[in-house]
């Protein structure tokens, strides 16, 4: 920890974050052409305070103070930063949501609340979200086991300093009975464009729901997944051990990867030209558009990302595309420009940024090629 009070660092931290892409979009790790990120989170509550819905404002402040002080103490030397979410501007809160460091609910709720994050953006500890504490670790690619080990160690350390609500038969007690028991949510984010194009995605998602796995889209409103990103997670948290829950999600991922790869192979084999055309047009629009919405950007970037993975686009790399997915989000754009923008102005700014970024990338590449 620095000697300054942690929240004084937040302006520097946030502007630092705006120039990086964050752990989960690093684009590395096993199977990272299809698996974007692996995430583990635990829900915990202090035994001697009411859950959030019944907590007075004094209770919320006490819970935030206790958890913040103990955790900062435990993580001393790890350079974690505490952000007082209640004090942040709405744009900064939105920015953290886009980076998946806090939930939308955490950004939009009221009362004392905060988040502790590490500089690599692997660890985020949300205080006073739906539960008193949400411990989250995110890794790039398919890496559930390591992420779980990291969460488990953190949980053990924190539990040495605080007493979490626990019931002999029901396990860890949570504000919503859907999380009771282990309080564990295991999630994997996948990029499945070929399953979407070949119209197999619905079938796949239905079969996942049958085995009690939840599926939701990234950034999507409702059930519509934007950019063909899907998050698979366990629905059940009680009656199974943590390793079992890890396995339940972990076992299905290779199957999904296999389906997606086969769908991509099918597309290459059966309609190479159509696919190449689709990918190239997407790339072309992104490099030339004068105004573009967030939805269209996600949609086109998804095609380009698949094109790069299939070798149809040679002058772009996956980490660069991943970076664009996040930097073209509304709050990220506004942070980069340095002031708030209306939707129409955001769309112009987004197109300008994409043109600059993608044309620079390819001309740099060409220059390198000539040398």
């Amino acid at each position: 920890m620095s000697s300054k009070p942690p929240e004084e660092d937040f302006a520097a931290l946030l502007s630092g974050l705006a120039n990086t892409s964050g752990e989960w979009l690093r684009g590395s790790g096993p199977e990272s052409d299809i698996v974007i990120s692996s995430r583990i989170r635990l829900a915990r509550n202090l035994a001697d305070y009411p859950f959030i819905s019944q907590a007075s404002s004094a209770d919320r402040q006490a819970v935030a103070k206790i958890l913040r002080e103990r955790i900062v103490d435990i993580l001393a030397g790890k350079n974690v930063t505490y952000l007082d979410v209640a004090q942040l501007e709405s744009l900064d809160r939105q920015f953290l949501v886009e980076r998946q460091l806090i939930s939308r609910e955490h950004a939009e709720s009221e009362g004392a609340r905060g988040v502790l994050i590490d500089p690599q953006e692997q660890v985020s500890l949300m205080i006073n979200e739906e539960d008193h504490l949400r411990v989250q670790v995110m890794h790039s690619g398919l890496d559930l086991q390591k992420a779980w080990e990291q969460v488990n160690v953190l949980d053990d350390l924190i539990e040495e300093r605080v007493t979490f609500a626990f019931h002999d038969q029901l396990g860890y007690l949570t504000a919503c009975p859907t999380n009771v028991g282990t309080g564990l949510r295991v999630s994997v984010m996948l990029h499945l464009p070929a399953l979407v194009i070949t119209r197999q995605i619905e079938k796949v998602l239905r079969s996942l729901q049958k085995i009690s796995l939840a599926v939701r889209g990234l950034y999507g409103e409702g059930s519509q997944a934007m950019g063909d990103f899907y998050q698979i997670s366990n629905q059940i948290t009680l009656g199974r051990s943590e390793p079992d829950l890890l396995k339940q999600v972990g076992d299905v991922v290779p199957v999904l990867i296999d389906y997606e790869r086969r769908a991509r192979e099918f597309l290459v084999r059966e309609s190479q030209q159509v696919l190449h055309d689709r990918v190239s047009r997407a790339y072309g629009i992104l490099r030339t558009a004068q105004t573009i919405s967030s939805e269209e950007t996600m949609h086109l970037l998804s095609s380009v990302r698949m094109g790069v993975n299939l070798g149809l686009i040679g002058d772009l790399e996956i980490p660069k595309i991943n970076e664009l997915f996040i930097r073209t989000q509304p709050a990220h754009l506004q942070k980069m420009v340095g002031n708030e923008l209306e939707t129409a102005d955001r769309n112009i700014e987004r197109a300008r940024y994409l043109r600059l970024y993608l044309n620079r990338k390819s001309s740099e590449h060409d220059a390198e090629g000539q040398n």
Partner: protein
Amino acid sequence: MKCQQCDRQATFHITELTGGKPQELHLCEECARVYLTQPNEEAPSGAAFVGALAQHLAVSQTAEELARLDRTACPVCGVTFYDFRNQGRLGCPHDYVGFSKELEPLILNIHGETEHCGKRPKRYDQGTDRLTDLIRLRREMQEAVDAEQYERASEIRDEIKAIQQSAGLP
């Protein structure tokens, strides 16, 4: 009535109010689960599902039983069963003890199990329910302060300190 999405019996009758004009949905339990757990910008999904499920489980009771149950308040945090049905969130850890009879079918429905078999804390591995006394006492202390009964409030504060010390809480 048949479920609108499959051939099973519809047991959930949902009135969707979020899309402009109210829309009636009649679904079986499985389709209702899928429908209600879809991410929704307005309502946190888990809570919406739990609330609807609690509503459903409570429907099988007679009106008087339901009214009595709805008024039942947790002695620790004061949340009523009605509050829980509405918001899908519990008020404190003691609710799992106080409303255990009502919650058991709900938990079985969500998880298919009622026994935790994962990680346990090193301390308090038999449960932390006795610590919920502190929640009740803090509430009573605040009430005493609000009623300007300062002597009573300070007695309660001493009681809280004593419990914290004996429990090894800072």
